[in-house]
Every structure is written in structure tokens, then in C-alpha cells.
């Protein structure tokens, strides 16, 4: 049942958003954003899903299927799966930058509390 996937994606996104908005620990904020990111992948892969479809590997049709059936859309949507692949790569880079900033913040400010790291305001 694909509805479960959507619900799970929404729940994950909501959890991440809750963490981002309420937690002050920088590492937790990064974790919240990672959760939201994971939920977008789940959402995209679920959007790509079609009932009874096969993986979008179009070298030769699987047993019992003709090439025509594949051409008529009995595969999962490869474009959305590519979305995810691209976003995963970008997400890794962003998380790395995030964590390196968090480490530097910990070294400079001796804290990970976002509330004690707001010298600029107003």
C-alpha cells in the first residue's frame, strides 16, 4: 500500500521540522534537517512507484514481459529515482559542510547551543 509511504514521509518531514523549529542544539538541528531530507527521498521514490511495475532497468525486458509493455510505462519512473540520486549526493555534501561548521562553532564558542550563538540580531 503506497499510502503508507506517503504517511511515513509526512511523519518524517514533520518530525524533522519539529526538531528544526524547537531544538537549540546544533547537532540536533542538523539531524532534523537530515530527517526532512530522508523524507523527501521516500516521497520521491513513492511518487515513482507504479502498481506491478519493475525496476527501470531497460536493457532487456524481464521474463514474461515484452519490450512494448515496458515502453507503456510498466516500470517505476526513472526520472524521479534520478532526482533522489542527485539529491543524495548533494545532501551528503551539505551535511558535511553543516557538521564542519558545527565542529568549528563548538571550538570557538565552547557550546552547541544555538541560543548562545546569536551575537547578530535586530
Amino acid at each position, binding site marked *: 500500500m503506497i499510502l503508507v509511504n506517503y504517511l511515513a514521509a509526512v511523519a518524517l518531514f514533520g518530525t524533522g521540522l519539529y526538531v528544526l*523549529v524547537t531544538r537549540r542544539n546544533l547537532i540536533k538541528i542538523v539531524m532534523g*534537517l537530515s530527517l526532512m531530507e530522508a523524507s523527501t527521498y521516500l516521497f520521491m521514490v513513492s511518487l515513482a512507484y507504479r502498481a506491478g511495475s519493475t525496476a527501470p532497468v531497460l536493457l532487456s525486458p524481464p521474463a514474461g514481459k515484452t519490450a512494448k509493455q515496458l515502453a507503456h510505462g510498466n516500470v517505476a519512473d526513472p526520472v524521479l529515482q534520478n*532526482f533522489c540520486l*542527485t539529491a543524495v549526493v*548533494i545532501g551528503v555534501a*551539505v551535511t558535511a559542510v*553543516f557538521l564542519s*561548521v558545527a565542529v568549528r562553532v563548538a571550538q570557538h564558542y565552547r557550546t552547541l547551543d544555538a541560543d548562545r550563538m*546569536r551575537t*547578530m540580531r535586530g
Partner: protein
Amino acid sequence: MSGQALASLLPLPVALPIAGAVAAPLLARLVHRRLAVIAGLVALGGAALILLLQAPSVFGGLVRAHYLGLWTPVHGRALGIAFAADPFGLIFALTSAFIGAVLLLYTLSELGGLGPRELGGYACLFQLLVAALIGAALTADLFNLFVWFEVAALASYGLTAFLLERPVALEAGFKILALTTLASFAVFIGAGLLYATAGALNYAQLHDALARHLTTPDLIALGLLVAGFATKAGLVPFHGWLADVHTATSGPVSALFSGLMYAFGIVAVARLAFQVFAVNGIPVLGLLLTVGVVSALLGAIMALAQDDLKRLLAYDTISQMGILAIGLGTGAAPGIAGAVYHLVNHALFKALLFLCAGAILHRTGLTKLSDMGGLARRMPVVAVAFVIGAASIAGIPPLNGYVSLSLIHTGLLDGQQYLPFTLMQVAQVITIAALGKAAWLAFFRPRAGDYPPLESLRPGMVAGLASLAGCCVVFGVLPQFFLDSVMAPAAAGLLHPARYASGVLTGLARLPKLHVPFDYLSPEELGLVVACAVAGAALGWAYVRVREPAPVRLLRAAHTGSVNDYATYAVAGMLAVIAVLTLT
């Protein structure tokens, strides 16, 4: 050169800076540190040259497309990534390449003393950001736009947190990271949702599909995309990170961010609103108008309240992005042409002002206006440049701001949008007060103690300031030329989405001619300028003498500096945008 050959050159303006970015750290470490920046200058110059080759035909009204890897559309369906040069995208790409090169030259002069590691990394990130801006201007593919968004975002994170020895850079770095990542999720989900319902990523195919059939998920996707790109543009309420970023960065980086990177968001929103969702009955223009007015007012008020020169300019950037959104929101030819004009003007004068602020900081070490004063005598070149930039924003003829602002006024008045027009004038008065205050406090006010001997400006810095200030004047004195040859075709491209779509799909299309008249000596406009300038000067004079009014204090208190609060504002704004688009 034949049209086909010209089209096949389109990916090069992006590829050259990316190649330069890859080479920069190696050149800096293995050969000579300054070579990294010089290679960057060559790459950006090459990109600008190739874009200039496209200019005559594209500004003549052609839309030209190239599909990467020659995956051209079959039966009107595109699988490949399209790069399309239309007048609107090309003028943004050209502005990015030229101002990027000027800023790199300035960097070479001012920060040339950095170590090889630092200078190499700086040149790399700088070129990546410019490449992303050019890519975003030329692409005609929604997912490709997301990729350029992320490239620009990653480069901007690095540039923000570049001066690691300054703790504020880390603080600002974390804020821009959190808010832009949130925005990237919105753009990502929006693009995926739009693909799932309309079955395409190509702007042209999306335009055709949405014109045939528009569903609620499409509108949700539009809301997410607009909110995401508005975060990049720093529109209210997505703007929390913006001022902090400028407090932390050096002059040329601030100039790059403020002059060019935020305009990325506006360009993307304009493409979505006019060329992809070109369907009547979507309240997206009204939304732009509202967000624009709120941003223009709030940015101006916050700018007036600042004592830190770079924060003042940063909040003014929010205000100017609001003006751009207002121009687009008019939906009429003069307003849109004015917005495109203002986009170029803003890149020129805001880059100029941030370079001035950076030069002051670099030489005196001062950031607060209350500590400065009397700099006109000590740094006359910077003072002249700052006054030219400030007068351009104030819309004083014969400088460029006058032209674009009066065009936007015409667009608003033609559409009988009197309330936004009035509020825009209020914002303009406050903006003039803020910049007048800054110029007075920094340059002309007598100062008690004298400065220690100040290092003089280097030739590259003077060249940078002079070229930007010169462009401010040129764009102000030749309005009809730029309007006819650049801005009106750009507005035509936005107002005739079907032509743009056919150009993207078939590789070539001609846009209809559009004439936007401009009356330089219109008595109403000139009277308005004088009235705004007098009112602004009076307000600025009064503001430095009174205690901070309570509403301003409340507004400042709302900018708590907490990343959680800024994320909350952005999420609330996102929900509001989606609600407006789906419920009305």
C-alpha cells in the same frame, strides 16, 4: 556564425567558470597563488565573450535553445536538459559574468595577500557561484534549476564561513545553511510534485501541460517553489539569514551575494510565474506584489534602524528585492521592463556600495557608523563612489535608479494599483533616509579624533569602483537605448510564454517586438523624486536625533538572531504562500 553553432556554444559560459573553479586551488598551490584569481578572470571574461556573441540575435528578439548531449525533443517531448538563451536570461547571465569579473579583479587587488590555500579556495568558490548563476539564467529545465540552486548554495556556504577566524562568520554560516537547506527541500519537493502531475521538467512542456490542465498539486508545487526561491532572494518572511551573512563576509563576497545571488531567486520566480505557470486566474502576481511591498517596507525600516554599515546595506537589499517583486507583480510591460532594468541596476549600485563598505572596513577596521565620520576627506574616491551608489538607489536623475523606478511606477499606475504605489513611495522615502544617514555619518559628519594613517586604494580597487559607478551613470543617461535593445525584449519574453516555449522546444523562435516608452523629463516623476528626496532627508535628519520609536524596536526584537525563530518564520511564510495559491 550560424545560429546552430551559436546555440551549441550555450553551455560554455557555465563550463568555463567551472573549469576555472577546479583549476583554481591547483594553480594557487602549484604555480602562484595570484594565478588562481587571474585564471578566474580569464574564465569569466571568456564566458562574458561567448554570451556577448549571442547578444545581437537574442536581444533582437530570438529565443535559441541547445539540448545538452544533443538529446533534442522528439514529438514535443524533451528528455535532455535544455539551455535556452532568451533576452531575460541572457541579460542576467551577462550581468553575472561582467560583475563577477569586476569583483574578482577587485579581490585580486584587495585580498591578493591571502595565502595560496585561501586564495585558491576563494577563487574556486567564487567561480562556482558565478557558474551557478549563469546556469540558472540559461537553463530551461526545472530540475537543472534545482541543481544550480544547490551549486550556488554550497558555494555561498563556503564563502560565508570563509573567514573562519571570525566567530560571526560561523554563526552566519550556520544560519544560511539551515535556511537555504530548508528552501532547497521546498524546491526539491515542488519540482518532483510538478513532474509527477504534469509529467515534464522542461519549462516549455510544463507550460503546455499546465495550460491544458491545472490541478491543486500543481499549485502546491508552485507555492513550494516560490517559497524556496523567495528564501534565496531574501524576501520577507524568508529573510532572517540575510543581514547576518553580510556582517560576516568581506566586501567583494557581499557584493557578489547582494548584487547577483539574491537576484537568482527573483529570476527563478519570474520564470515560474510568467513562463511556466502562464495560466490566468492564479493569484501569483498579487502574491508577488504583496510580498514585494512587505519586503520593501520592512527592509527599509530595518535599514534605517541599523548602526552597522554592512547590515544597513543588507537590509536595504531586502527592500530592493521587494521592489523587484513589485515590478514583476504589476504584470504589465512597463513594470516588468522596469523590474529587469532594476535587476541590472541593483547589481551595479549594490555591488558598488558593498565594495565601499568593504574598503572602509579593510582600511579603518570600523563597522559601526557611529564610530566613523569625516571619511570624505580621508577616502575621497570611496566617498564619491558611495554617494553615486546611494543617489542611484534614491532614484536621482541622471543615475540609473531613476529610470527603473519610474518604469515600475508607470506599471503600477497603469494598472491602478494605488495602494502598492503609495507604500512603495513610503519605502522609498525610508530608503533615502537610511542611505542619507549612512553617507552623512560615515563621510561628511565631522569626527572628533583623527584616523591613524590609512592605506590608499590600490589600482584594481579603483578600477572596480570606477567601472561600477560609470555603469550606474551610463545606464541612467541612455535609458531608451537599453530599454529598446535589452529590457523590452526581456519583458516580451516573459509576457509571451508560448513563444518562449516554442523556442525551447524547436530550438528557435522569434519574440514579438515590444515598445516601452520612457519620458525622461516627465514632470510628475521629477516632482516625485524631489518630494521623496526632501522627505527622506528630513526623516533621516530626524531619525538620528530621536530615540528609537516603539514599532521599530518591536521589529528589531522580532529579528532574534535565533536560527529556530528564522526557520519558524520561513515555514510560516511557506504555508501562507501555499494557502494563498490553493485557496483563492
